[in-house]
Structures are given as C-alpha cells and as structure tokens.
C-alpha cells in the first residue's frame, strides 16, 4: 500500500542477476507493504530465481520480448490482481524508490505520472544527437500531452487503474514504443499526464551506449517512432 492504494511495482529485467536482488531489497525496504513483480524477459542467467529469493513475485517469459513485451505482462498482472496503482522501475537501480510516494500523490489528479530526470533534481546530463532527440521528443510530446514533459524516455512511471487497464490490452513491443508511443497513445485518449522531477542515480550494473554514430541512429529512430506514433490511430 502507498497512500492507502494497493500498489504493484513492476520491474522488467533481462539478465540482471547482479543487481536485481539489491533493487528488490531496496524497494521492499523503502516501501513496506508494496508488492514487487519482477518480469524476467527471457533471461539466460538466474535473474528469476534471485528475484524470487529476494521476495519478489516473478513472472518469467519463455523468451525475450523486449521491454514493451515485459511491461504489458506486468500491467496484465496488475489488472488481473486488482492493483489500483502500478509503478515501473528499471532493474539497473537507476530509479530511487523513495520518489514513489511522490509519484503516487500526483495520481489523485492525473492518470500517468513520469519520474523525470533533467527537471531540476540531480545532475544527469547528455550531449549531442542524443540530446537533440530528447529535446525534440520533449517539445512534441509536451504539446500532445498539454503539459511540460522534459524526459519522455524515462522508464520510471506510475499508472492508475484506468491506465493499467489500457496498458494491459495495448502496449507496443517495438523500439521506444514502451516510452514514446505509450505517451502519445495515453495523451490522445484524454488521460492526464504529469511529470515529477527525480534525481537519477548511476546504474548499479551494465553500461549505457554512448558512441556518436549510435547517438545519431538513436535520433533517427526516435524521429521515425514519433512520426509513426503520431499518424497511428
């Protein structure tokens, strides 16, 4: 329970046996009485077993579906088990669970709340084409959602019951679909979206991709995904 609401934390994880126990442990420590569901996205290591041992509920996919696939499974679980709030958190420890009550607070007047980096708190920085992509996405999505959004690719999100039910039946599995396209779809259907500034931490394990070529490709793909999302029904 967070603020008197039955809450599920969804953590999609792919080969995160190194950090998943710490993340699950931290969430359970910071948010007592909250259920944690780790969606094992077809890991080849012991992610599922480690997560279960750490006290999480585990749903293990038979093969890799990508973040979007794992998330729809999480929202289906939340819907089927009557959770009022579902919050997604990354398995690499970047998201600080202490912000969760703040996100849930805003769900009283909003349907989807995003924990946003670069919104004042913390010192997370990016440069070059990757930054241009984020600026473009923010500008367009802020207009679509009628609210200021600065970090549209953040995977730190809280959804209320209405959005849980929508995401349980509709959730794109493709690249950036889990972030950009879900925002367009949600805003288009009249749901209210808000962002909350959060400080983002260094990931506990794994490395981000940072070559200029990959950043350019990212910009191109982000543009393509956004255009497609905007012309889709």
């Amino acid at each position, binding site marked *: 329970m967070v603020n008197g609401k039955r809450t599920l934390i969804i953590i999609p994880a792919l080969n995160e046996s190194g950090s998943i126990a710490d993340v699950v442990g931290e969430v359970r420590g910071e948010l007592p009485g909250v259920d944690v569901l780790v*969606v094992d996205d077809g890991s080849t290591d012991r992610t599922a077993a480690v997560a279960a041992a750490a006290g999480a509920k585990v*749903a*293990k*996919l*038979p093969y890799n*579906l990508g973040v979007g*696939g794992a998330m729809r*499974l999480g929202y*289906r*679980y939340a819907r089927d088990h009557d959770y009022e709030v579902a919050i997604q958190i990354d398995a690499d420890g970047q998201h600080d669970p202490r912000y969760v009550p703040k996100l849930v607070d805003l769900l009283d007047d909003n349907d989807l709340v995003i924990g946003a980096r670069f919104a004042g708190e913390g010192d997370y920085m990016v440069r070059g084409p990757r930054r241009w992509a984020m600026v473009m996405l923010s500008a367009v999505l802020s207009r679509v959602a009628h609210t200021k959004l600065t970090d549209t690719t953040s995977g730190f999100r809280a959804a209320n019951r209405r959005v849980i039910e929508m995401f349980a039946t509709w959730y794109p599995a493709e690249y950036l679909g889990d972030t950009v396209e879900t925002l367009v779809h949600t805003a288009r259907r009249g749901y209210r979206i808000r962002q909350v500034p959060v400080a983002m931490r260094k990931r506990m394990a794994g490395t981000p991709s940072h070559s200029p070529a990959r950043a350019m490709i990212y910009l191109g793909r982000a543009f393509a995904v956004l255009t497609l999302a905007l012309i889709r029904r």
Partner: protein
Amino acid sequence: MKLTLVTGLTGLLLLGTIVELLRRRQLREKYGMLWLAVLIIVIPLSLFPRLLDNVAELLGVASGVSLVLFLGIVFLLLVCVHLSWEVSALEEETRTLAEDFALLRAEINADRAARDELVSTDG
C-alpha cells in the same frame, strides 16, 4: 524454340514441386493454391510467349515478354509484403501466448508456495 523448352520445363518442374509439397502437407492450402494459380497462368505463357503481345501494345509496352516480367515483379513484391504482414500477425500471437504462459506459470508458483506454507504451518 529452345527458350520455350527451358521456360516450359521450369514451369512444369515448379508445378510438380508445389503439388508434391501440398501432397506431403508441407505447404498450407492457402499458399499452395496461390502458387498453383500463378503456374496455371505462367506455363501457357512460357510456351506461347506472344500471347500477351496485343495487351502489351495496348498498354504501350514494347513486348508481351516485358509485360510478363513487370507483372511478375509487382506480384512478387505484393507476396513479400503479404508475408511480412503475416509474420507481424504471428509475432503478436506468439507474444500474447508467451505472456499467457508467463502469467500461468506465476500463478502456479504462487499456488505452490501458498500450499507449501500451509503444509509447514500444519506440520
């Protein structure tokens, strides 16, 4: 005359292959029928390449053979698009199946854990 022989034989060979695949149930009827229909149109054309010359002239194409080539490419493109579409639908189906499977497995594990707990508190 030689060309007619080559194209005609190729057509017949393909026809045989499709029929054999259908007979061994290696090819779904809907695809088999499509290829059979194509071959039934193509084989006469390979034997009498001038059949389409009148139509070609009507469309401003130099010869019936070029027309066949053009239509063939268009047809193959359409088939490829159709197959991509089918694969997309299949992927969505397997995705839903995988999710269902994961949910069921989670349910079974939860039930089993609950039962084990009952047994341990009883005993």
